[in-house]
């Protein structure tokens, strides 16, 4: 019996690990392998790592891909553009999402469930379609411009599409639920007596917000921010559809290297660099998160 349980436990605990190994670490290792390979024409478009010839075994490993992308400021700028986009939209998501999450968490139960469904409903439509819809709304002959011209507020259609702001709009619109849901998860557990207690002890509403509500929802803020920030750094579709030529984003650069230039090693090196730069904030976040929970549970 105990053996049977142990066996079950083993599968229960290790299934996620097998999943991770199969679908995360192996592909990652493959990408890493390509990133240190030498590029060449052919299929696949890189040289085999180990080659046997008359001179014996030759190992074709190079760091030149990494050296190349770090020496050309073009890649760095696109990465910074993406970081900038991710930071800005995370902040905007937080500012919009926090009050919404708070309101949903503090609504009566029947209303709360309805609001949660409303938050999730957009996911039932294809993400691509929803971003494309923004194109229709924002374009020169789009809904907004048509209305503004009709009411005589403007003569010429505003150019709202194909710039950095349109991308931010699209990203915020798409990722807002990922900010709201973890925040909601923390705020719904929040004891409202704490707000009353703070007020009773003499703290005005703003002070209560700063001294009590924010610190206690910090894990939710961190979780939501990470869920928005990390995917936005590599976001490709939204900048492609709504962005213009004013700014190049990291995801788009990787796409171009892969499919336009067919330089897989450079593309892989870019992807790996992106991951390593992101891993640092994630580790910091995890440490902070663990520390917080260790203290409070």
């Amino acid at each position, binding site marked *: 019996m105990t053996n049977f349980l142990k066996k079950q436990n083993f599968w229960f605990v290790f299934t996620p690990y097998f999943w991770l190994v199969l679908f995360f670490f192996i592909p990652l290792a493959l990408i890493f392998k390509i990133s240190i390979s030498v590029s060449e024409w052919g299929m696949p478009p890189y040289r085999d790592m180990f080659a046997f010839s008359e001179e014996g075994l030759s190992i074709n490993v190079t760091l030149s891909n990494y050296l190349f992308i770090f020496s050309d400021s073009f890649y760095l700028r696109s990465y910074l553009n993406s970081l900038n986009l991710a930071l800005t939209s995370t902040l905007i998501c937080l500012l919009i999402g926090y009050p919404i999450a708070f309101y949903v968490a503090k609504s009566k139960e029947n209303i709360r469930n309805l609001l949660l469904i409303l938050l999730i409903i957009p996911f039932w439509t294809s993400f691509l379609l929803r971003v494309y819809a923004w194109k229709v709304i924002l374009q020169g002959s789009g809904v907004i411009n048509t209305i503004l011209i009709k009411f005589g507020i403007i003569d010429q259609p505003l150019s709202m599409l194909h710039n950095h702001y349109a991308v931010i709009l699209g990203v915020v619109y798409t990722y807002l639920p990922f900010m709201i849901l973890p925040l909601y998860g923390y705020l719904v557990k929040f*004891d409202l*007596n*704490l707000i*009353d*207690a*703070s*007020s*009773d*002890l*003499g*703290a*005005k509403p703003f*002070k209560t917000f700063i*001294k*009590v509500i924010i*610190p*206690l929802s910090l894990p939710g803020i961190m979780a939501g921010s990470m869920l928005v920030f990390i995917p936005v750094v590599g976001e490709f579709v939204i900048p492609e559809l709504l962005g213009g030529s004013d700014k190049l984003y990291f995801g788009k650069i990787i796409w171009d290297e892969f499919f336009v230039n067919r330089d897989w090693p450079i593309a892989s090196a870019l992807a790996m660099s992106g991951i390593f730069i992101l891993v640092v904030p994630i580790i910091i976040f995890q440490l902070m998160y663990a520390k917080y929970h260790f*203290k*409070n*549970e």
Partner: protein
Amino acid sequence: MLDPFLKIDGLSKTFGNTKALDNVSLDINKSELFSLLGSSGCGKSTLLRIIAGFEKPDSGKIYLDGQDITTLPPYLRPLNIMFQNYALFPHLNVKKNIEFGLKEEDLDKKEIDQRVNEITTLLELTGLESRKINEISGGQQQRVALARCLVKKPKLLLLDEPLAALDKKLRVQTQFELVNLQYKLGITFIIVTHDQEEAMSLSDRMAIMKEGNILQIGNPVEIYEKPSDKYVANFIGTANLFNLNLIDQKLIIKELNLEISNNSSKNKKLCLIRPEKIKIQKLENQNTQNQCIGVIKEVAYLGSYTKYLIESNGFNFYAFMQNEEVSRNLKIKWDDKVICTWSEDSIFFFDD
């Protein structure tokens, strides 16, 4: 005459279709330990939350120390509340919890430290200052909650079920500590509780509430001995209630078919005899007045006293006997015939 310290004047509050408070008026004196007692849903917590400022009354006024505080927000009211679940801040340690309210008062650090020190000493929290809230026991949490309020030197302290979260033994001990503390500090306390024993042992005066109304205000003795109606009599302690009939100018206890030789209470309809005032003996000799013959239906030995359920004339009532006497009356057991007696003045007659 002096104005009362806290004057509650005609408060009403409706939530949806339920009247939580129905024109409630109440005067509380300075340095009084006052309890609001009632079963759940009687409006006592709503009243407390309105006094604290968390709820707005539909009508009525609250005056504290002569000042109209009806429309003041909670953070401007010179009073504090201790919550039933204590509502301590989990992200702050004991000291930070206690000084939270002082930091909102723009005091200099020296005074804050001094006052925090005083209160931690008074409430025996010294040494726990840097602990997190989840690292201290329930009893300690209760004292931190108390300290957090008292350190602000409020004019009035509201306590919402202050002992409900403690286990029974700690509860009794804490009851006495709370009374001592209140006496020492002279702060007016208003305690909300559903526990009648707690209210009786803590309070100078108490109010019994039901369905948004106050049924009776008085000290514990008045309320126990002279309840205003059937509900209060039953709510506090055990009550033997008897209907009265006037037949041929004789006052008869209807249920026992027994005559009462009381001439002043001839127009009364209902009376109360508390069980501890009924003496029971095994049926041997027989007197004439204020007594009846009954059969013991149930015996419950409760340590300090024994409960007897007695049936007489088809009607059940209780008699309690101190066990100092029980040891002499051990012979009384199930199905014994007993004679029950009580003195004339232990009968309480209700006003109509």
